[in-house]
């Protein structure tokens, strides 16, 4: 089965028509448990998320800060697995045919699941792209090339350390959008320097026509508005995961306001992206 839904393309086209940046929300699949995670997933579009980065939990998330590490471990402790993550996408897709869901994570669980089996199951469940943090272009034969052959977008990360000489290599085989990592660090650690992001996004645009999403470090409505003035999408993860974590009880179980804690923040951020070009 090949991927043909092109929900990412349609989403970015619609945003362009509205003349506003999109809001991508990252949540970890199965955090704090499968049921709550599905409820959050279903509530995100209504709260203002234009696309969803759905984290595939991994025991050793090398590029993530403490918040997303903890979120991954919570999910695993509550029984998350790659098969269950794909299942959550399938259940979400039964009700929502338009919001793109990009699966984001690390390679080992996919490698163990089996690359072809993973692509088949992810596409049939209704996933719209992949971001696999520890697969640089040097390892494209592993997953990127097989995914692109099936039509499934493989979204790559570009960083402040990716110079002009390396950019073409990073952009080869990239589709869907470019995820610009706005700081040289791990998720959720620093404030985003807006002038540097503006310059970096400008530099990226001389190399590609793909939409550019910016993430790592966006926390508030104001941030989202500022970053959204230069990017095609703002991607927020750590702040959302922190809001979720703050609603849990002392045993990391979902509280009565867990879904609301997430959607409240998402609604605020959604206002931010709508003010970005005002």
């Amino acid at each position, binding site marked *: 089965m090949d991927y043909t839904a092109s929900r990412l393309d349609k989403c970015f086209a619609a945003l362009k028509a509205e003349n506003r940046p999109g809001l991508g929300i990252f949540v970890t699949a199965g955090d704090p448990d499968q049921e709550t995670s599905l409820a959050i997933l279903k509530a995100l579009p209504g709260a203002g998320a234009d696309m969803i980065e759905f984290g595939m939990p991994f025991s050793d998330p090398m*590029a993530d800060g403490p918040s997303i590490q903890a979120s991954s471990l919570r999910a695993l402790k509550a029984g998350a697995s790659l098969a269950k993550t794909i299942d959550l996408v399938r259940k979400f897709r039964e009700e929502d045919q338009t919001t793109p869901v990009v699966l984001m994570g690390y390679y080992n669980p996919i490698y163990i699941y089996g690359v072809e089996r993973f692509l088949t199951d992810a596409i049939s469940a209704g996933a719209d792209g992949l971001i696999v943090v520890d697969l640089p272009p040097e390892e494209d034969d592993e997953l990127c090339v097989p995914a692109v052959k099936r039509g499934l977008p493989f979204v790559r990360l570009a960083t402040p350390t990716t110079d002009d000489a390396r950019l073409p290599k990073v952009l080869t085989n990239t589709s869907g959008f470019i995820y610009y990592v706005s700081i040289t660090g791990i998720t959720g650690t620093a404030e985003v320097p807006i002038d540097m992001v503006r310059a970096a996004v400008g530099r990226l645009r001389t190399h590609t026509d793909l939409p550019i999403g910016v993430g790592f470090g966006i926390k508030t409505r104001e941030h989202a508005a500022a970053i959204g003035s230069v990017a095609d999408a703002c991607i927020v993860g750590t702040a959302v995961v922190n809001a979720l974590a703050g609603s849990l009880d002392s045993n990391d179980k979902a509280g009565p306001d867990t879904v609301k804690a997430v959607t409240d923040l998402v609604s605020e951020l959604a206002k931010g992206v709508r003010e970005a070009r005002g």
Partner: protein
Amino acid sequence: MASATPAPNSFRTGPDENGHFGIFGGRYVAETLMPLILEVEKAYLTAKGDPDFWAEMEYYRKHYIGRPSALYFAPRLTEHFGGAKLYFKRDELNHTGAHKINNVMGQALLAKRMGKTKIIAETGAGQHGVATATACALFGMECEVFMGAEDVKRQKPNVDRMRLLGAKVVPVTSGSSTLKDAMNEALRYWVSKADTHFYIIGTAAGPHPYPAMVRDFQCIIGEETRWQLEEAEGKLPDALVACIGGGSNAIGLFHPFLDDPSVEIFGVEAAGHGIPSGEHAASLTGGNPGVLHGNRTYLLQDDDGQITEAHSISAGLDYPGIGPEHSWLHESGRVKYVSATDTEALEAFALCAKLEGIIPALEPSHALAYVSTMIGDMDKDKIVVMNLCGRGDKDLDAVIPRLEKMGKL
């Protein structure tokens, strides 16, 4: 164990230009790290071809580390086992008490050439941390060592040594608070400090070029063994034995002999409470291939690809992965990978102290435990060389109560 792949003409040509040993190795890191890794690779390739770099290495090997380390015939153990002659490669006599300094000196000199003045490292038992702190003191570099919070508690003497040497020890509380988490944290930190910092990885694992670079710096162990045994016995060894956590001491001994088919080679993993118990650190014997810390290699993991915890009484072997070249040598069948349990290692520890007056580290005690199972069946004119890669002072707190319980003290 041997795969259907035909044997290559040489086992010593890897890795390829992308850092692959067969399907193992590679560069599975975030894009943020790629430019750093490529910079290290470029600098290393230049240094490797520069006689001045090796002359400097040679100076520090001789005058600071104390190389060559002795190749010592162990007469009483040989008599005790009643078979082939046993030689120890005495890398425990190196400055800082283990083989780790061989690699650290190479990487520290490389960092210096690259103009980096700040060093980070990960450590489990603390031996690599101590070696790194030592080189940083020697060269006046800032040093930060990431160490699992559990290990900080278990290895206090080494923590104090690092502090004394001027290093900052950073306790890591993420994940299971042990070596793999320390490595995750060091990689995370490096990403944020790429301009100024050099990461000295302690074993022959991680993204390319580390597995090849660490091996090259450790190969002095095997190269010396070759000429020392030629002097002593006029021939090649019949068998080599070394313990394996990440596998840097082992690859250093093995690599110069890989293309000598008469030399049998054994790598000894830590079987902890025994392979069937599931509580062990034997990635090759009890794991399967996966991707972690920048390379594809054998890992301890569950059905979902989540990394599981390793267990060994030896903190230096307590790692859920193994260097990628070992995974390749395992599948090619050139090296035989076996294992020894905590208890077997403790018995070997006590035996070595009593019969040779050498207190080995728990890590090479695993190698000696395996030697004890095979050497007695070999002819008396055969020769076994075992890498005694570290000394045991650091292990006394862990070992003494166990030996008392076993009635060995």
